[in-house]
């Protein structure tokens, strides 16, 4: 195998390992832990006491989150929200541009829930669920 292909292969492998990095669900420090079922209910509009936050549709973490937390792909989750939105029962999770923005919003609001890569967790937020 020639070098460029080997390099490409290695980068793809590393990229896939990075993409498959552990995701965590975060809330403000002091929040109680959440179960997978509870996180699912928050993100599909079945629980209204917490405020879910999303990453942009283009973020790989977003697809990974819905896949790991509730076994739904992007089209399925969009269909779920179309049902809720067009019965006037709620609005989809607020979308923030990146993980840093999610962390800031979660740290500032005890009701906000977000998901980020485990490697980006710091003391401003608390991990309430690990998604492996």
């Amino acid at each position, binding site marked *: 195998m020639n070098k460029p292909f080997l390099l490409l292969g290695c980068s793809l492998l590393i990229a896939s390992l990075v993409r498959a990095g552990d995701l965590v669900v975060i809330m403000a420090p002091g929040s109680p832990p959440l*179960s997978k*079922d*509870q996180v*699912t*209910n928050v993100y599909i509009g*079945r*629980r*209204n*006491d917490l405020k879910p936050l999303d990453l942009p*549709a283009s973020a790989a973490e977003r697809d990974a989150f819905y896949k790991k937390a*509730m*076994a*739904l*792909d992007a*089209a*399925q989750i*969009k*269909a*779920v929200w*179309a*049902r809720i*939105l*067009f*019965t*006037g*029962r709620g*609005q989809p999770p*607020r979308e923030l541009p990146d993980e840093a923005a999610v962390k800031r919003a979660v740290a500032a609001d005890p009701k906000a829930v977000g998901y980020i890569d485990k490697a980006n967790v710091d003391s401003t937020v608390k991990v309430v669920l690990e998604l492996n």
Partner: protein
Amino acid sequence: MQIDKRASFGVFVSISLGLCVAQAANADNGLNALSDMFSYNGFGTVGIARSDTDQAAWIQNIQTYGATNNNFDYRTDSRLAVQGTVTPTQWLSGTVQALTEERYGPAMSTQLEWAFVMVKPLPDLSVRAGRMELPTFLISDTRNVGYANLWLRAPDEVYGQPIFDVYTGAAATYQREVGPYSMSIDVLSGTSISDTALAPGVQRRIIGHKMLGYSATLDRNGITIRVSRVTTDRTHEEYGITYPELSWSFDSAGVTYDRHNLVLQGEFIERRTSNPAINVNGYYFLGGYHLGKWTPYTMYSVGETIGGADGTIPFASMHVVSVGVRFDAFKNVDFKAQIEHATAYQGGTPFENQTTGFNNHGNIASFVVDFVF
């Protein structure tokens, strides 16, 4: 007011495209307090349907005109809705939705479908008042939103039975977690009016007084189970005559499963009235499998009058077998194609305006594009 149907369709398509473009132009605007308070969204479908018979028109719900082998009928499935929501506080919101579609007249018409205010006095409780969708069966409230459903259209054998789509009144929803489950209890009360055509150009107004509805929904891990009951005192007006009220009830038990790559949905419904000749049972089974962006599916649906053991009540039924595929083409846009074989026994719909010699069978091919914005 009747609008020329071609003009109406042109306006319909222009508004759809215009809103899509406007949405794309606004997509990168930052959030601010005002746009947080006001939001607009919409959904629509542009589609055609054609049957292989010219001896009967294939018609859905309360529509007057349907598909035959002489035309590609665009009115069966095409519709456009625009919805605006204002949320001044976390516990108060207002929603209006306008919907353009074919109803009982020859042209597509636009009406204010919903206009309601929602109050959330507690996190688990919401109360709505105004004009709202009537959630008679499992997906009654979202059956117009093509994008939200796997099938090309809701089976008329079940979803054509209630007649009433919207009501004016009040509804309360209590939703909370019970262990790993999410539970929702809904109650509603109100009045509903539905205009249909007795014959082309002759209006029949159906009125449901003292409408009451109850439903319970349980969800976990992509499985939803729902049971419901709607009752009403129904009367109708035609040729200036108001007929006596009869008690009607609609019961439903339905299940959906949407997880991993598998989609399953099934529902059984009963329509009961004080006139046994129009009591109906209906059911359907839907199965689909996600293969990347493609989801092939199949459905079997039945609607039939109960009939009488002694033969005094005429028996009528309709059976439909469908095979189709959904393709999630772009963000917020899907394409669907479906072929179905419909059989009507003893004059059961969906075949209307039958000519002598009609053999009670028809094959219908449909293609639609669904979008949300």
